[in-house]
């Protein structure tokens, strides 16, 4: 166990726990956008910053990536922390003015849009948190999507924005996206995602369309379970 002080409160947690979990465990809220539990952490959004004090030195760190240490003094609402958080929210609101998720979050954090920033119109709702890329690589295992270009030109998508042969249409990326940027339409026997249309498979038991054929084929290949056995939807299993 390690003991630390967060906003004046004594907290203990198991060794190796990230500050984010330790702090939230103590009932103190920390906003996050890129720390999805299904994927590894990238430290991209910087919303979860806290100020830590070790000896005489204080530092701003992202709580989602900093492991709790014995004797650490953490301030989750210092002026510097709030300034970073406010800035991140203002920057993201200007990038994705349409995002309801960001609008709601900024209300909670009492951040108004910065009038001096001209809002973007070409970025959709993507905050570049990377969760979709990571889930596709780390959980699904096909790496159909990635990040391209640098700086403010950075985008997420399939290589060259072309239809990806690697994508199995599973929709995991949609599921982890915090802002609902990724468009997926499933109607009857078809699913459209990342510019590609997938054929859906009906459940052998109830006859309902439940998963793209490509996804079932991929799972079968990867796990060795015959396709036949996978042809039953979760509800009927």
């Amino acid at each position: 166990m390690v003991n630390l002080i967060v906003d004046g409160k004594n907290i203990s947690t198991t060794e190796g726990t990230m500050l984010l979990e330790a702090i939230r465990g103590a009932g103190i809220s920390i906003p996050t956008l890129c720390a999805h539990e299904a994927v590894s952490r990238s430290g991209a959004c910087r919303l979860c910053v806290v100020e830590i004090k070790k000896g005489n030195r204080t530092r701003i760190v992202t709580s989602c990536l900093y492991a709790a240490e014995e004797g650490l003094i953490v301030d989750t609402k210092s002026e510097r922390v709030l300034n970073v958080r406010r800035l991140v929210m203002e920057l993201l609101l200007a990038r994705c003015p349409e995002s309801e998720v960001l609008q709601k979050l900024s209300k909670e954090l009492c951040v108004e849009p910065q009038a001096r920033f001209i809002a973007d119109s070409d970025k959709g709702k993507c905050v570049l948190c990377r969760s979709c890329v990571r889930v596709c690589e780390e959980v699904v295992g096909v790496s159909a999507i990635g990040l391209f270009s640098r700086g403010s030109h950075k985008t997420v998508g399939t290589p060259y924005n072309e239809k990806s042969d690697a994508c199995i249409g599973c929709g995991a990326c949609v599921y982890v996206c915090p802002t609902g940027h990724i468009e997926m339409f499933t109607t009857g026997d078809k699913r459209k995602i990342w510019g590609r249309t997938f054929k859906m498979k009906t459940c052998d038991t109830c006859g309902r369309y439940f998963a793209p054929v490509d996804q079932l084929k991929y799972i079968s290949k990867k796990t060795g379970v015959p396709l036949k056995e996978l042809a039953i939807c979760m509800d009927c299993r």
Partner: protein
Amino acid sequence: MKENPDTQARRVQDDLRLNYGPNKKFITICAGTGCRAYGSLKVKDALEAELKKQNMNVEVLATGCFGFCEKGPMLVIHPDKYFYQQVKVEDVPEIVSKTLAKGEVIGRLLYRDPDTKKTLFREEDLPFYKKQLRVVFGRNGMIDPTRIDDYLAIDGYQALGKALSEMTPEGVISEVKKAGLRGRGGGGFHAAFKWEGARRAHGSPKYVIANGDEGDPGAYMDRSLMEGNPHSIIEGMIIGAYAVGAQDGYIYVRNEYPLAVTHLTMAIASAKEAGLLGKNILGTNFSFDIHITKGAGAFVCGESSALFASIEGRAGEPRAKYVHAVEKGLWDKPTALNNVETWANVPLIINRGADWYAAIGTEGSKGTKIFSLVGKINNTGLIEVPMGTTLYEIIYDMGGGIPNGRKFKAVQTGGPSGGCIPESLLDIPVDFDKLYEVGSMMGSGGMIVMDDRSCMVDVARYFLAFLQEESCGKCVPCREGVRRMNNILEDICAGKGREGDVELLEKIATGVADGSLCALGGSAPNPVLSTIKYFREEYEAHIKDHRCPAGVCKALITYSIIPEKCTGCGLCIKVCPTQATSGEKKKAHKINNDKCTRCGACIESCKFEAILVK
């Protein structure tokens, strides 16, 4: 009896040493990238041909950069050490028949001090070189970097021999610690602490890496070292690897440096052949190998975690981790990453001792530093000075001051994300801590000098535009914040600045500095914050009075002709691309501001300083 590695190294040297005795006649000619561009290789070929023709047996050594690149091609004739600059192929016959055959100097090839108008014979007499202390960089000019023998002849690999035979790894670390060597690539971290950390860290294999990415525009000291004295870097790395307990090393070289790659590759091969690198170095049981990786081209690839990612074959993006590279660096193994110049200092420390080294420099910054001097300065090039040399000495004594009698305004140190230092601080001693204190940094040692015709808002905008493009785009504060700061700066320069913009810039800057994932974003606000700190009134003039005091921001200036000064010569009419100037001969001319694009052509042409920019 088995030869001790030190004696072995010394014996090789004695065999070789002096070929270049004190009275031996030979020529060193700079074949660095700069002088090559001026045709130094042609001069070298011509010299060799002419010597053959005149039946003279004088060796011509193609060396690395001498530092004074703008005067290239340049050569030194030994043993008299006559220094000839801006040498052309046509000069060659005369050099051979006069200087080499009879010892006569050729006046027009010597350097003339523009201040005293005196002709100077030797390199060390030039004001540019006089106050320098070129212990690391100066050796460039003594050797042909493609020949290991040359390096051995200047005591090369002697430090390695000493380290392997007389010192324990811990002893090497404590010597480097005592010397106080700090990293030359940016942060100024103590090298010995890094090595100690990597030595103690669990995990195997361990790595040492030389960072030769050098992404700062205008900086080329690392290139010059890699091209001009590759063995000094390699020797430093071998010693470092011995200290750290590393088996493998990498040199990460910027993709645009083909000559550096060639020379490093040759150096690695010949060091291996000589038993100085590879298995059982100098007969000991210490083995170490070095590989070269070519950089991916982005500025951010010089950042440590991005560099590791790049060597590992992944996208060169920084990684957010609060575990130090000495524990988990390349492939998550203990790694000591140092800048090329840092490594090149190591043999010197081992050879001459920590006490000698620590006697150079200031309290907190020891040794020398190589700087690249560019911008509005008379002598541009690379200089090496003891830490603690003042900015004034660098800019005026070595740099020869500001051209055309203009006034110094600021110097930007530390690369694109460094800060601008004003005239009032020219007396500060240049070292890691002092530069940081005044809102700038050492960075890799770039210095861009600006005169009174530079607009500091425009300067900040220029650097932010660079950084916006170079941000990897991973984290929000840097990707979005640098862009927004740049937008505001663009607005201010375009006359669209608003009340409150300066305060807003300060607020964004603080958030970007605090919140960014890596040091690119962490330091990106420096150009903005330092120019606001020292030149706030210039920002205010743009925003409140719609005026660019330096006369740079085109939207905020008008050109006019001072009637009293104009002689009506008509030159400005000839040069104006938009026919904005007009007037009768011998009568004062006029500028039509609706047509004028503020290109400045008329100013350049007017001999009477009759054109006013306001």
